């Protein structure tokens, strides 16, 4: 029984490794000068969009353009260029489009501030309605004291 379970688990593990290797993203044999460089370069390449496949970043895509750009990013980082310079290199060729996180500027204000504006608008409406409701509740309570007696009197008088 135990052996059977072991076999079963082994088969699952084997198939899992096979599947994961089939879906692995392209691995480059680029050798970085340091681990920090590698970390920074990979992070940068993750934040840049492949201009050809459009829904993949430079790491996930295996199109030739993405491969070239990925290597370009690696080399620039290893050459000591900072993030801004790499991003400038990419946007001067492929436009703002390659940035997954667009820069804050006049034409992207709607993009950045739109959700905040909508949230504020929603909160404002919510606030407005709640306050209105409270006021009407208070109105009802205020009626209950002397006014109620008077009202009752009036109503009784009407009955007669």
């Amino acid at each position, binding site marked *: 029984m135990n052996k059977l379970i072991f076999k079963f688990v082994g088969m699952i593990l084997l198939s899992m490794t096979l599947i994961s290797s089939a879906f692995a993203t392209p691995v480059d044999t680029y050798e970085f000068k340091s681990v920090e460089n590698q970390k920074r370069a990979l992070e940068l390449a993750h934040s840049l969009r492949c*201009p*050809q496949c*459009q829904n993949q970043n430079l790491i996930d895509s295996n199109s*030739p*353009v993405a491969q*070239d*750009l990925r290597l*370009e990013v690696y080399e620039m980082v290893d050459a000591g260029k900072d993030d801004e310079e790499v991003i400038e290199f990419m*946007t*001067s*060729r*492929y*436009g*703002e*489009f390659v940035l997954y996180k667009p820069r804050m500027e006049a034409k992207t204000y709607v993009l950045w501030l739109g959700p905040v504006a909508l949230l504020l*608008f929603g909160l404002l*409406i919510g606030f407005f309605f709640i306050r209105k409701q409270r006021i009407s509740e208070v109105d009802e309570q205020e009626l209950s004291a002397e006014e109620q007696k008077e009202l009752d009197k009036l109503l009784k008088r009407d009955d007669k």
Partner: protein
Amino acid sequence: MKKRLVLFIPLVLFLVMGVFLYKGLFLNPQNLDSALEGKPIPAFQLERLEDRGDLITNESLKGHVSLLNVWATWCPSCKYEHPYLMRLARQNILPIYGINYRDERAMAIRELNRQGDPYTANIFDHDGRLGLDLGVYGAPESYLVDHNGIIRYRYAGPIDQRVWNETLFPMIEELQAAAKLDGAS
């Protein structure tokens, strides 16, 4: 009455956003603005496809309005575009420079011998470096360059009669008129 109108604000917002998003559905994601429009052609120095000894540089492209066409033998849309480029070449409107992009030299030459060569000259961009500097992400792509060597327009995809009539030719006429005023050929 005014309070009633306030109640319609969410509906109006919804409609505005709806129209905005609906329009987005029909945008072509391949139609990206080129970041290079209005900028000079990137500096390069590359061999001619047919002749290793003959170097073409970005300076060679100055002095006349020209069309740069990025092509390769591995690109099916380039084959589709080819007969139209041949027609354009016969009309002699402007020089068409080919950028042979990430291709094998022998294969590219054979292809031109077989199918005809619409190009004034072919720039052999074997490792795709010029393509990278131009912001090419696929072939075919065409760049309209004015007589000062400034990129005026980028078109991604195969050129056909419609693109030519509606977009490229009117721009070329305008650029050529401007070049004449400047005294260039």
